[in-house]
């Protein structure tokens, strides 16, 4: 199971880590009960502060996606985020706005969303 980080990405590292793990959970590649490395191991591999990874894990924990066990890493708990419907719609609305402003037609946007959704849920049951 791999986490890919892009140094040229404008998102901070903790966000990239949290988003990547979320995608792996959503795609079914990280299943319920799957262990994640400890904060120390991941921070050491990435060469970042412990707090960066702790923040990413805390965010995932707050959303109910993982459970952090002190000193022994974390485990995936669920494939369902605890965010409310309105909270979930907001990032979609923002992304769609960007695509419309980028000049994409309705059909192109639908194709794009469909392709991304297929890629994301390829391994999911």
């Amino acid at each position, binding site marked *: 199971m791999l986490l890919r980080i*892009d140094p040229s990405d404008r998102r901070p590292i903790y966000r990239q880590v949290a988003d990547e793990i979320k995608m792996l959970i959503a795609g079914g590649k990280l299943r319920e009960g799957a262990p994640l490395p400890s904060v120390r191991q991941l921070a050491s591999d990435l060469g970042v502060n412990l707090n960066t990874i702790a923040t990413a894990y805390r965010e995932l924990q707050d959303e109910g996606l993982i459970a952090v066990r002190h000193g022994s890493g974390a485990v995936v708990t669920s494939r369902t985020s605890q965010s409310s419907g309105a909270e979930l719609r907001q990032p979609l609305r923002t992304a769609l706005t960007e695509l419309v402003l980028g000049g994409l037609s309705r059909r192109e946007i639908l194709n794009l969303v469909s392709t991304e959704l297929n890629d994301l849920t390829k391994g999911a049951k």
Partner: protein
Amino acid sequence: MFDPFVLAAYAFLAIVRWLGLPPLLRLATHRGRDWFFDVELRDDLAVRDRFVCDYRRAMFATSIAFELAALADLVVFRAWSHILYVQMPLLLGVGVARRIVLRKYVLTARERRVPASGERVAFSLVPRRLVDYTSRTFELCNAAIALASLAVIDRAGRSPMFLVAFLVLYLHAGLLLWKARLVRQRVVLPADRADEYLELVDEAFRAGMRTFDGARSVVTFFLLMLAVRATYWDAWRERTQTITAIAIPVLMVAWLVVMTTRGRRVTATLLARAREFRPPAIPRFTPDPARLGLAGFVYWNADDPAVVVDGGPLRLSINVANRYTYVYLAYWIVLALQVRALAGAL
């Protein structure tokens, strides 16, 4: 006159000291002249060659300095006890000094690498735990033999021998600590073919762990031989002395030959496979200069998982806010105290 056992021990340790050097010199350009280990240098060929040449010269000079010190000690003192107090620490010292030289040149090479244009890197999300690289049967046998040997030596009531055995057992624990440290070392993967690269890294890990376990089994055998010596009775005195006197050096040399041959074969195979991949651009992180102290040798950042960071004149600063720093420090202090206690008892 030289004691032949002292000479033999010196020769053995000298061979071990020098055996570690050729791979370090050769591996620098195993990917070709454009590379320094796994870093592609951006300079022109002449500058790249000079860089590699400087590295080899520094490595060689470091090794010569330690060898001269060991030789001088042998010629001046000719003492058996110096094998423990001087020659063995010099073996350890040359290993550390070579690591410092290597680290300095690798970090310099990373600054001179071909610039990566936002190259993506990957990291494994599989927890790396010591238990995954450990054979339970081996550990149980090892611990049982080592502890039983120690108990037998203790019952025999030979104080100096017990101290030697305890020291050996402590070194055993040190190897385990080192193994645990290796499991936690940084692993960065290229974004392309990351799965295959991770497989290769894992194989290299397992090969390294097997070498460690091999070394630990020799230490256990040494303890067992000490227990045999401690418990012989008069009728068997001559025989057991001969057994232990011959068995220990023979096994040590045999182990060295097997490990070197096997190590060379495994390394060659792994390197050939590694050359199929373009190595990842390891992200560079420099510590906050405000957190460096004592001429850059000490670093204070509890939030940094690294024990050693890139800082100071040797590009090596110890993070004194990391709890593992104190674990390693305590280990060395206790080791020094044990050697001192042994010196008093002999």
